[in-house]
């Protein structure tokens, strides 16, 4: 995917979210750090452009909810969590760059629910690369990308990498 593909995918997801959750006054986006938070802010801008009003965006760090703490050589580095609203009762669209094993999303669901009891949680991802290890699926998908398990899927985004693209490198 090049920059135009990424932009079109995000615009489409923004429309799909509005179609599904329209009138949902308590719609909020929560991006998973890193990259998911930047994508969430982009989606919020798209939604503001379409609907004419801003929706709140939060950043969630799932590190402390990972299922591999103590298994890596170094303890995983903490990132920022900043949820500027009470999640209780909200319609939360969780945003991440790549959906793969589903383990990150499992951790994110537990982390979110510890912060309050949302009405619903939906999932939006830019890329679904398959190979799930848990019963998790996305509600909104930018693109399904068939990959091998050993392939490297990298989402580059302007805010961090200087350009938008999705790159699949075969191992």
């Amino acid at each position, binding site marked *: 995917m090049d920059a135009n593909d990424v932009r079109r995918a995000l615009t489409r997801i923004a429309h799909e979210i509005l179609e599904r959750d329209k009138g949902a006054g308590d719609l909020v986006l929560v991006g998973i750090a890193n990259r998911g938070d930047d994508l969430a802010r982009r989606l919020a801008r798209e939604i503001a452009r379409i609907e004419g009003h801003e929706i709140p965006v939060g950043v969630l760090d799932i*590190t402390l909810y990972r299922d591999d703490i103590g*298994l*890596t050589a170094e*303890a995983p580095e*903490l990132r920022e969590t900043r949820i500027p609203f009470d999640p209780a009762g909200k319609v939360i669209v969780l945003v991440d760059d790549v959906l793969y094993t589903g383990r990150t999303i499992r951790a994110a669901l537990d982390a979110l629910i*510890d912060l309050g009891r949302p009405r619903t949680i939906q999932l939006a991802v830019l890329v679904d690369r398959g190979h799930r290890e848990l019963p998790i699926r996305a509600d909104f998908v930018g693109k399904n990308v068939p990959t091998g398990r050993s392939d490297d899927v990298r989402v580059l985004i302007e805010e961090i990498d200087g350009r938008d693209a999705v790159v699949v490198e075969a191992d």
Partner: protein
Amino acid sequence: MREHLLSMRDLSAHDITRVLDTAAGFREVGTRVIKKVPALRGRTVVNLFLENSTRTRISFELAAKRLSADVINFSASGSSVAKGEGLKDTALTLQAMGADAIVVRHSSSGSPLQLTRWVDAHVLNAGDGTHEHPTQALLDLYTMRERLGRLAGLRVAIVGDVRHSRVARSLAIGLVEVGAEVTLVGPPTLIPPEVAGWGVATSFDLDGTLPKLDVCYVLRVQRERQRLEYFPSVREYARLFGLTRARVASLPDDALVMHPGPMNRGVEIDSDVADLPRSMIEEQVTNGIAVRMALLYLLLGAAGEQEATDA
């Protein structure tokens, strides 16, 4: 991070930054309604406090519990230690029970190091004799960095009973490592000659030091550790080295007042000074939980080089 936390000498400036950055993440956890995360579920942390301490033990206990670890508190009174069991046998017992980390406070300098020779668990020094108290130093560094935005170049005076203070030693080592300028201030009898090797300045004149400070760190007068008379009277000590309202007035406007607690109000610090907005004493306590969470997380959350699996 290494396997244990015994001394501030084990930590490079880079290590210190990693601990403080990690603690910043745990500060946020402490502001939540549910202040608990599952990071260390199923791990066992033993608080082995063979010298009296309330605040450090409670702080470690809360830190471990907020990480979902199981916590066992083991103190000298009412335990097998009171029946004459030695440190080694106590350590081997805790090892046999499967402790993953042992937080140790002991009146003998060097006992945490000794403990590492007997057990596989991670050992964290929570204060050993007059040697070191590294977690206190780290929470103090965290408080300074958060309030003043930096550590390098900060001018810090550590005032009082340096001779008997493990807090002073650990803090001075840490401050020098991160590039702060440290002055130890106190009566000549309480500034031991060994400080010449610490890379710090010394002064016997508190009033002359105050106007050039970013942080005035006041030590507790530890009468219980003083085997001799190091100063004529508490009243004279308070007059020469107590941080009074009048002395605070000669500090720069944004300078902080810090104290490791528990305070002797009216001796090393005046009661109304302790309650000033620039006084960080309660904030130090709050930050202490986050810093100890960070240390437990960094030590217990790593498999080490050999055991690391492909995650």
